[in-house]
């Protein structure tokens, strides 16, 4: 009998679910959302790249030494380990905004793997170039010394 009245009462109760796409679910103020990056503050120490567990951050380097930050929101696990590792406050930061879904057009897995390898290669190339230039310079200096 108790159950019967309870069931009757439940007919007039509001549903506990929410209409999701039209109504936002609960998101706390310090939700672990998108990772932001401020190029002007960054000191290019690459510590965030070193600590990132899934490898969602990578820096590529041009031949003139300028570094570019790459971030993959689909690979990132939003653990904010990069934010803790960053020596410069505010260069890399976490917002409360949830990340958008990855789309097929973005080719987020294979494209990212290729980009990652390319970035590492660009850095190796830059380092090799720098080493070669330094060696050339040293050689020039050496010949200058010998001429004197």
């Amino acid at each position, binding site marked *: 009998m108790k159950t019967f009245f309870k069931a009757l009462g439940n007919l007039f109760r509001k549903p506990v679910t929410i209409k999701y796409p039209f109504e936002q679910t*609960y998101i706390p103020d310090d939700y672990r959302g998108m990772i932001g990056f401020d190029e002007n503050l960054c000191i290019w120490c690459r510590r965030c790249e070193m600590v990132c567990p899934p490898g969602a951050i990578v820096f590529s380097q041009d031949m003139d030494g300028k570094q570019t930050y790459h971030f993959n929101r689909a690979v990132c696990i939003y653990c904010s*380990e990069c934010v803790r590792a960053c020596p410069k406050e505010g260069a890399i930061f976490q917002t409360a905004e949830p990340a958008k879904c990855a789309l097929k057009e973005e080719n987020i897995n294979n494209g990212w793997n290729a980009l990652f390898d390319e970035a590492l290669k660009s850095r190796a190339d830059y380092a090799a170039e720098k080493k070669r230039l330094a060696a050339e310079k040293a050689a020039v200096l050496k010949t200058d010394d010998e001429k004197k």
Partner: protein
Amino acid sequence: MGKQYEIPLGAQHISLLEPLHFKFTTENEKIVDTTANIFYVHRGIEQACCSKFKFRQVSFVVGRVCGLCSISHSTAYSQVAEKLVKIEIPRRAKYLRMLVIELDRIHSHLLCLSHVAENSGFEALFMKTMQYREFSMELLEAVCGNRIQYDFSIVGGVARDLKPAVGQMILERLKKFKPQLDELVDIYENNWTLSLKNKGAGAITKEDAMRLNVVGPFARAAGLAIDVRNETEDLLPWKEVGFEMVLDTAGDVHARNMVRLHELYVSMRIIENIIARLPESALITETKAFPDGEAVVRIEAPRGELFYYAKGNKTQVLERLKIKAPTFSNVSAMVEAFKGNEYGSVPAIIASYDPCLSCTSR
């Protein structure tokens, strides 16, 4: 003696949450023998932890071993890594770890209970339990910033602090949850249909539980007083925050439900005590040491004793990491407890074991 039939169940089955395969030998409806195959979801996490990831990153990797007891895994790994680098973590970090472990226990136990109800054929109770479980997910989101993968324990301490507002929110929600839990206990204990299905099903004796090395609520329902929280004091001070053992004697599905429900009261009390007595200190102990030597850690996950072994060799990458999940300890007893039961009660019994196969096969 009747003719014997072999009935396979799993690895994909509507009543199974996890890829678990059982082969039942039945006589009419009675089960006389069972074999289990559990390694369907091997992901090679141990090998990845010892080759691909640095030891500080591993606490995030092992957090992905299991969705339900993520915090137990990452805490256990953090503790074992802290033993290897020989540091003591701040007191506040210990308390916050306990807080999240207990919140996690609430949501894990409620999930298990709801599935027992569903597999016993009581869909309405499944919905109700899931509805009441939502508050714990939201609290975990408020504390850790995410609903399931918490990434809360890191080597040396915890990643985030508990804001006073969030602490207040937890207390309010717990106060609201208490009458709901009373209602659930009343239904699980006294509902006639559920009792018919659950009382006496999947029973295991205390002697068998002892012999087969059972852990967690499974063992406590059989009257075996096994709880890591009761045994270890050095890493997390459980007794300080009011831990009490919950025991039952029957050892059947109903007893397991009751143990889980009454453990929720203990968890709630622990959380209230932690928030009331949260000490003020730093969150992380910084160190630049590399792991060296061997260490072992045991921790009470929602399903029982979780065991971690790690070996370091003074480099960034560990030499060996071994995870032994609670379900792995329970498999031999699972097979044993089916004997003599009707085949029809198998789904409810499996759900009451609360098997976590992604932990077990890693």
